[in-house]
């Protein structure tokens, strides 16, 4: 098996051999098993067949906009049967797990984030600082601070304002206050080739304001894999990571010692993968996948036998 970022096209017997050697398959979601509200053709069948073959399947997504129970509904809606909540690892869920289990936060977290993140924090029992919207006299120059806040978490937030940025910055003046970001994605693709700003662009604002670097929970950081490993017995050497974004999914797989597959139904292209493969810089080489497929449906040829 060529596990060295060689961008080898997967076909024929190679697919079967690869699947035989792996027990765990980790899928990114957007651009891999679905695009928006449309499943990638063949993806539901691939997931189902992998499970029938006794493989453990996990879904590892940087998208923090939904709580896990909403993801379960989306899976069902798009034709994926039997996907359990426990198999879904989103950056929102993992950020809450980090605060509760790794940081063991004693105090509240000030959140710049959306409903999905708030729900996961509440479900994990992590106290969230309440946002007082229409406070008389509050401005970007004088905003009241909650003395119980011991962490700041930043993620995708469509209600992001300068006021939130100023407030978060005030909390981060204390070096003991933790600084977390759900994921580093600068933008997210939407239907029709358009894009929308991602968590990474909001994190950049806060890092610049505070002169501090955030601890990033999502891919390519290892934490989401450590989160999976804390709940399930996963051997990296027997695990496969399938993603569409070289700088997040493939680098994540590489950082965790997983075999990596790039699928071409999402963000990154084969050309970009080859540039990383041929680079002299070690960090860039880690963004080159071991294997490349056109779509996850390519696995059907091996699974249907």
């Amino acid at each position, binding site marked *: 098996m060529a596990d060295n970022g060689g961008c080898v096209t997967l076909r024929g017997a190679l697919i079967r051999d690869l699947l035989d050697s792996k027990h765990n398959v980790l899928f990114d979601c957007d651009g891999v098993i679905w695009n*928006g509200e449309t499943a990638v053709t063949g993806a539901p069948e691939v997931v189902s067949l992998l499970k029938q073959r006794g493989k453990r399947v996990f879904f590892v997504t940087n998208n923090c*906009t939904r709580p896990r129970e909403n993801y379960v509904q989306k899976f069902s809606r798009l034709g994926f049967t039997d996907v359990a909540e426990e198999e879904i690892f989103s950056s929102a869920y993992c950020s809450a797990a980090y605060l509760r289990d790794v940081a063991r936060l004693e105090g509240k977290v000030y959140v710049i984030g959306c409903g999905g993140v708030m729900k996961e924090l509440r479900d994990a029992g992590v106290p969230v600082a309440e946002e007082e919207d229409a406070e008389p006299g509050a401005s*970007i*120059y004088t905003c009241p601070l909650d003395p119980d806040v011991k962490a700041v978490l930043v993620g995708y*937030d*469509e*209600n*992001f*304002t*300068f006021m939130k*940025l*100023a407030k978060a*910055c005030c909390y981060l003046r204390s070096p003991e206050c933790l600084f977390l970001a759900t994921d580093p994605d*600068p*933008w997210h693709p*939407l*239907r*029709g080739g*358009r*894009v*929308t*700003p*991602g968590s*990474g*662009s*909001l994190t*950049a*604002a*806060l*890092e*610049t*304001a505070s*002169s501090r670097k955030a601890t990033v929970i999502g891919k390519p950081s290892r934490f989401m894999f450590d989160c999976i490993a804390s709940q399930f017995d996963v051997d990296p050497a027997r695990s496969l990571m399938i993603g569409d974004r070289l700088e997040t999914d493939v680098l994540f797989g590489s950082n965790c010692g997983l075999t990596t597959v790039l699928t071409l139904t999402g963000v990154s292209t084969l050309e970009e993968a080859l540039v990383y493969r041929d680079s002299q810089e070690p960090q860039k080489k880690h963004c080159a996948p071991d294997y490349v497929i056109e779509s996850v449906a390519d696995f059907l040829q091996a699974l249907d036998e």
Partner: protein
Amino acid sequence: MASSKCTRLTEALSRPLLDSVDSVLFDCDGVLWRGDQAIPGASEVINSLKKSGKQVFFVTNNSSKTRQMYADKLGKLGFDASKDEVFGTGYCSAMYLKNVCKLDGKVYLIGSNAMRQELEYVGIQPVGVGPDPISGVQKDWANIPLDNEVRAVLVGFDEHFSYMKLNRALQYLCNPDCQFVGTNMDATLPLEGGKTIPGTGCILRSVETAAQRQAQVVGKPSNFIFECVASQFGLNPERCLMVGDRLDTDIMLGSNCGLKTLLALTGVSTVAEAEANQKSECPQRQKMVPDYYIESVADILPALQA
């Protein structure tokens, strides 16, 4: 050259330094005032410099006031200043878009009303100023209606900065022919009493990250802001002194443009930081070493009155 850098400006050294320059460029925050309080003695220095025949300019990265608003503030604090001597990044961005980008079209502006005025003053029409809260759902945002006359995105300080504004800027910047200009990279905006709030740098970094593009930055330490002054007044860099409180903007600008530099210790940077830069091997850090430093600009007064 390098060996005589970072020297305390004594009264004895002040006289020859002043004789060697015709123009003195002052940063404002942390040099002439702090918030709304003038640095004691600063106005006497400015006014004496002018009386002795030196040209004086006010060069600031702040984009929230027009040149006239700055001149008014300077006047209130006792400084003899006219609008033509003020170079803020609102005005300089407008000049940059007009003369360097040769903008033919509108600009999507993340910035203040003051910036809007400076743009309109040079005949450029901005769109987008003011509050812009989110509406609709995610799939609507990539499809918000764009003004097809917009040919540039300009980012300055904007207290109404929001996700929707970030999104609009991103949509325009997806077109590689759309120009991308920023007023400055300062991470914080100083307020009175030593307080700070996030600065334009945060807003600009946010837009750069989403768009995966770098802005052309007009303010210090970019050369452009000096060239703006120099081209209007025919300045010779070797006969100019830059006085500022920040090593990474004011002093760097001076080094980049070949000006003499004086660090005033009434603001952000310290002598220790300057000396650390001086000892460093890094060429970039070497540019952040002033020729001279002084406790306060007020300390120049004795040499002027002598």
